[in-house]
């Protein structure tokens, strides 16, 4: 894990993905996107991001399953994860560092990403 991207966004909604990538790129962070739960772990290993932004409802594997896989992986379990939830804040999967409910304020997104990147 030498030269990875700053953020990997795992999100299936194209317009939301575009918005997030635009917001993060304006802050100078490099952001890649992956549109489904399947093969998400391989993408993470390949891109070696410093932070994963993960949607809860994904085609293929759900965000909860991806998160569980990630936390069970000895190499990746320490990776910071920001969860995006479109079902409010109830019944969220365990293991995320931060959670943001959709719709969110762009400032909140920026603040959380900055916090997690600085910590990591």
């Amino acid at each position: 894990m030498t030269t990875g991207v700053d953020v990997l966004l795992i999100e299936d909604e194209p317009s939301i993905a575009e918005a997030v990538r635009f917001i993060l790129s304006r802050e100078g962070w490099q952001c890649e996107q992956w549109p489904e739960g399947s093969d998400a772990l391989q993408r993470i290993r390949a891109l070696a991001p410093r932070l994963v932004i993960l949607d809860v409802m994904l085609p293929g594997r759900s965000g909860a399953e991806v998160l569980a896989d990630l936390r069970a992986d000895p190499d990746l379990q320490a990776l910071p994860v920001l969860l995006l939830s479109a079902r409010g804040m109830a019944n969220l999967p365990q293991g995320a560092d931060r959670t943001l409910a959709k719709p969110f304020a762009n400032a909140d997104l920026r603040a959380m990403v900055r916090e997690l990147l600085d910590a990591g």
Partner: protein
Amino acid sequence: MTPETLGAASVVYVALMFLLAHAADRAAAAGRWRWMDRPVIYTLSLSVYCSAWTFYGAVGYATRSGLEFLTIYLGPGIVFAGAWWGLRRLVRVARLHRVTSIADLISSRFGKSAALAALVTLIGVLASTPYIALQLQSVSMALSAFATSGHPLPGNIALWVAVGLAAFAILFGTRNLAANERHHGVVIAIAVEAVVKLAAFLAVGAFVLWGIADGPADVLARIDRMAVSAGGEGWQIRPERWFTLIALSGAAVMVLPRMFHVLVVEASDENRLRQAGWAFPAYLAAMSFLVLPIAVVGMDLLPRGSNPDLYVLALPLSQGRDTLAALVFLGGFSSAMSMVVVSAIALSTMMANHWLVPLWLWLRQTALSEPAQAREDLGTLMLNARRLAIVAVIGAGWLYHRTTGGTTALAAMGTVAFSGMAQVLPAMVAGLVWRGATRRGAIAGIVAGALIWGGAIFLPSLGLAAPPAFPAGIDAFAGAVLLALAVNLLLLVLISLVDFPDPTERLQALSFVHAIAPDAAASETAPAVQAEALLTLAGRIWGNDHALEVFRKAAENQGKSGYLPDLTPRFLADFERHLAGTVGAATASALMARVGGRGSVTVAELMEVAGEASRAREDNRRLELTSAELARTAAMLRESNEKLTVLSAQKDAFLGQISHELRTPMTSIRAFSEILMEPDLPAADRSRFAGIIQDEAARMTRLLDDLLDISVLESGRAQLKPGVVNLHDLIERALAAGGASAAGRDFAIRRNPLAEHLPVITDPDRLLQVLINVISNARKYCDAGEPAIRIDTRRSPQGGTEIDIHDNGSGIGPENRALIFEKFARLDDPSRAGGAGLGLAICKEIMGFLGGSISYLPGQGGACFRIALPPRPPRRAENAENATG
């Protein structure tokens, strides 16, 4: 004060008790029993022990035999002082087994023996007859004390009293077949009467002690004078009599049918004994400590030859205190009334459960080959049996009173009853503490003891035999009692030791001795019956509401919803015990034996014997459901309960989906609108982002429209606008409408326009909606290199219309075909097209609404949906009503 006035006062008093009992029963029926269900009521109801014998006879007893009268208070006092260690176990075991009487307890312990129950009932009836006679006699004797030459005693007083008390007992004792045999109205009346008799006795005692005599010192001085003059012939303390009488009265407080009834059957739980343990002995002490002064002053003042049993009345009368005397009369009347009423209720339950119903069941069994003509019902039969028994018991008491002519001293008649009923004591105590006690031992002991009692005590009391003579000057009564009990106990122990009990008996013994709930294995019934059949049987005996409640609880305990528990051995045992609470253990066991199909009896026969003939109409106000209706209702309740659970889960999932579907476009809209507010945005980005916002807003609008549409369709409030339309025109419009969403791909459309020219009677707008939906789905999801849509139309053989819409894509996998018509069933598909997943669900609702259907046709080399329409849409009168209402 004339006998007539007093008679009228008694009638008013009884009427008040009627009202009180009635009010209490109504409150209990309305569920407001809690405020009455207090320990103090229980303790006061125990005072039914103090019958008219105690009220009048104690003074007579003291006059004749000195301090010996104390024994009848000492026995119960000792038993209750130790209640927490002894009686508590009796109450707990009896309540565990839902025992309805002393006979039921003995029978239940010894293998639910019907013979034993009948035997104990016989002893109870024999022993109680003189005792009830004594109450009637006391009332007429008391009235006679008021009679003067100008106002002679009206004839047949005892008969009228008997009739009135029988009416009271029938009204409040046989109102319904309460499953636990509790009679709230009667208990409240007894408790009030307990206060009246105590107040009356204390009043007359205080008057005698301080109003006539000059305080305790004066009474003691009078005793000294009398002891010198009279020599105190009968006043010596005879140890064997004291021992016998204390033991007898101690036994009586437990085994007399009326005492067992208030002590055990009317007890809500064993904790009642905590207070009764000290409060009841205190009540007895209050009733007894003024006996001696009244006796002494009576002997001193009243003329020789006057009846000492009436001193309590004669003393105030001799001093011209008519009002006090009237109060005393009411106290004595209360004592007599509560004793007779409770005895009659207790004995009638025993006679009905252990004589009449088994006899009836036996008759039915032998007559099973004949078709059942009379569709009697067991509930009414039981109530009528009890009413008959009440009349019989009180009638027998009155006859006894007539026959003996009312000459015997009161105390003698009481001790006859005590000693007879005491024959049950060895079996009861042994049954509670010794697992080895057997049915044959109990029967032998009770029969032998009862025979000795009959020959040496009961018949001599009627003057039909001479009392036995015992050597060494032992008192005849004490000797006979001790002999009968000794033989009784000896036979019980010896025969039990050599006997071998059957399995039911051993299980009951275990459960009684260890005071644990009856073992599940105790029921040998095989679960060959349906829970519905048992529910129906129970409904006929207890009434449907109560039966449903019992079954619901049982199902709940098994973790099931609805009213039909699994027929586990444990449930069957509980059910039998509950049934025993109504009909007695022996009868319940017999009924269950038939339910379980033991031997060759089938379920059908059970319903014949018990069910069909035992419909309880205990509450005529309620509609009586037939068995089929009840079973159907139970099944329907179970079903709708399950449906509700599923629906509720579906509703939660649906709301979660809606939330998700709305939040997703909202997220883009919010994010991009915030971005748009940033100042240094390139113009190209600015207009692209505005376009995204517009698209997402349109997506939300579509979703909301779809939601509204589906809710209208699902609620049945949608209105059908029927019309005739050319199918070809409709398909043209659908293709034109769907054209815009064909995102740059060219679709080949294959049709047979000639075949499409079919007139269709339907709601054209709704059908168009379905066509647009299916065609746009094909456009969105068809993944072929050269996508094509083929539309086939035809008339069905039934005159309806079928439209097949194919595409040449990869189709829908078998695992998803069941899902596509569900709400939000958008399949996991990377090539998604932004729908909310409601389209096909709406189509399905619309087709149902139009009387047709939409289905997926597999094996067509692509996705293929068939839309089928009936010749004409269904009439929907109910929908029109809903729409206007």
